[in-house]
């Protein structure tokens, strides 16, 4: 009961922020587009049709066609599938690594903490994009490598956050009580402490999805992320880079560009709204 009323309170506070609600609505819209993509467009996003190249928007092709005669609307919708999936999966990977290492570092302290946090420093203090393009070029760009690279390179964020929470929570009465009645370290860590650290983790994961989508798009834009012909918003922009396309065929690059922007903006609104709604310092009402 307590749990339910708590989440209701959070929801009520979340709803107060107009931007957060707006962001949520936009996100739901894009998720639905991705799920029902095959029912929304008759075009195969990957089939080129050389007779229909570079067509401006028309009734048959609402967003026109690209330089290989593919329907831009279909590619934008299917591109959302790929961008959102890469965003979610890579945040899943970074959370998986970050939660385990952050929990270990915060709970055990000492040598374990020092080693893990020094490694985190190494990852944290280098230009993400340069490492990412290096690793991607060497292992060959693919959608799976993109997810793994983004996930593995961004674990220090959640790890630092969780370590701080564990340092704060490991001396609380409830974790001492759990240890006293015989719960092992793993049980105390993941059954007793972790659930209490979910709120900040949720906010960081939400904002993490936004930056993962941006990074994927950036990598794909450089030709080192999701490889063609599969559509991703980033590689669609990459394809539209020649100056004559940029200058005369804006329908090829505006839709994917606006899609990334709107989705990332919405996720940031939602993350910010969540942060305010979950902030324990806010008055409960």
């Amino acid at each position, binding site marked *: 009961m307590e749990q339910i009323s708590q989440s209701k309170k959070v929801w009520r506070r979340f709803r107060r922020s107009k931007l957060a609600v707006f962001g949520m609505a936009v996100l739901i819209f894009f998720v639905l587009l991705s799920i029902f993509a095959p029912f929304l467009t008759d075009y195969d996003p990957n089939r080129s049709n050389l007779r229909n190249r570079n067509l401006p928007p028309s009734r048959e092709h609402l967003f026109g066609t690209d330089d290989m005669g593919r329907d831009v609307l279909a590619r934008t919708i299917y591109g959302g599938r790929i961008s959102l999936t890469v965003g979610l999966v890579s945040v899943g990977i970074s959370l998986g690594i970050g939660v385990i290492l952050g929990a270990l570092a915060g709970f055990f302290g000492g040598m374990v903490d020092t080693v893990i946090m020094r490694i985190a420093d190494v990852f944290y203090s280098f230009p993400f994009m340069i490492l990412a393009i290096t690793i991607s070029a060497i292992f060959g760009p693919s959608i799976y490598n993109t997810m793994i690279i983004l996930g593995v390179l961004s674990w220090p964020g959640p790890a630092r956050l969780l370590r701080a929470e564990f340092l704060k929570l490991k001396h609380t009465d409830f974790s001492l009580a759990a240890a006293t009645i015989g719960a092992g370290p793993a049980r105390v860590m993941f059954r007793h402490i972790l659930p209490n650290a979910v709120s900040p983790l949720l906010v960081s994961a939400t904002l993490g999805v936004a930056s993962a989508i941006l990074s994927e798009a950036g990598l794909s834009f450089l030709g080192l992320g999701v490889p063609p012909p599969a559509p991703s918003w980033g590689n669609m922009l990459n394809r539209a*880079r020649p100056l004559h396309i940029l200058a005369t065929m804006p329908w090829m690059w505006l839709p994917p560009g606006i899609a990334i922007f709107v989705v990332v903006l919405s996720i940031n609104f939602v993350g910010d709204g969540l942060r305010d709604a979950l902030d324990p310092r806010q008055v409960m009402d």
Partner: protein
Amino acid sequence: MWRYIVRRILLQGIPVLLGFTFLLYLIITIAPGSPVTHLRGVPELDTSVIAQREAQLGLDQPFIVQYVKWLGRVVRLDLGLSFDSARRPVVTLIGERMPATIILSLSSIILGWGIGIPVGILSARYQYSIFDYVITFFAFVGISIPSFFFGLTLLYVFALKLNVLPAGGFFMAGEAHTFIGYVRYLLLPALTLGLGSIASVARYMRASLLEVLNEDYLRTARAKGLREKIVIYKHALRNALLPILTLMGFMLPSIFSGAVIVENIFTWPGLGSLAIQAVNERNYPVIMGINLMFAVLIFLGSIIADVSYAFADPRIRYE
């Protein structure tokens, strides 16, 4: 102070750089495939030729030998020779590209701080005003818009449609290096790279000033009858600016990351463009050199941020 700097370099800088280069070298060498086959302008080779080329480049040796040799050269400030046919020293290659990247990054930092700080101050002073809401909204836009989309849009509007600024590059051959020329070539890339900094500096500045405005010493300042302007710009601002100084060190990695993409959009002849070319060619010495260079720059940036923090805040003393 000097003791602190030396200790930071010895105890933190060197181990982190060693760990980083070791990991990177390991990743590069365990990857499948040979760099010889990736180099530009190299025709299809049979296996014996590949093996011979690899031996020439020292790639036949075990990873740890290669790494130690590389490290031994780095200590003597030699980053080796590029793998491509010209075989130029990596130090020279980096030296040619570094100024462009530094100019671009510095201008975007100046834009970020120069615009972000005043905007953040005004936003905090007039909290919950229309101006504050507009700024908050645009700060969200600034951190959400992908740099390449923003860059392409600027390119489209100012270079291709209005035709008032060059569409990229950095001085044509024979073009005089005038100040106006610098500004013309620099404006779009620096704005593209700086937008994110403007947005985040404004957000941090606003939050930091709002926090300080609740402090007791400001109530004291007002209570003794100081004018509001002096309270804000002398008493509050000095304290609110301190956390912003440390932000500088944190933002350097993301600025360099952004530079890779921005240089690519505007064909800016900096380290980022060199990096993309090098990774596509699997040019190990160049890849290692660039990564090391960025790592050192970022480390120096964090030291400068910390030291300037100590200068600005008399409560902080590094001994």
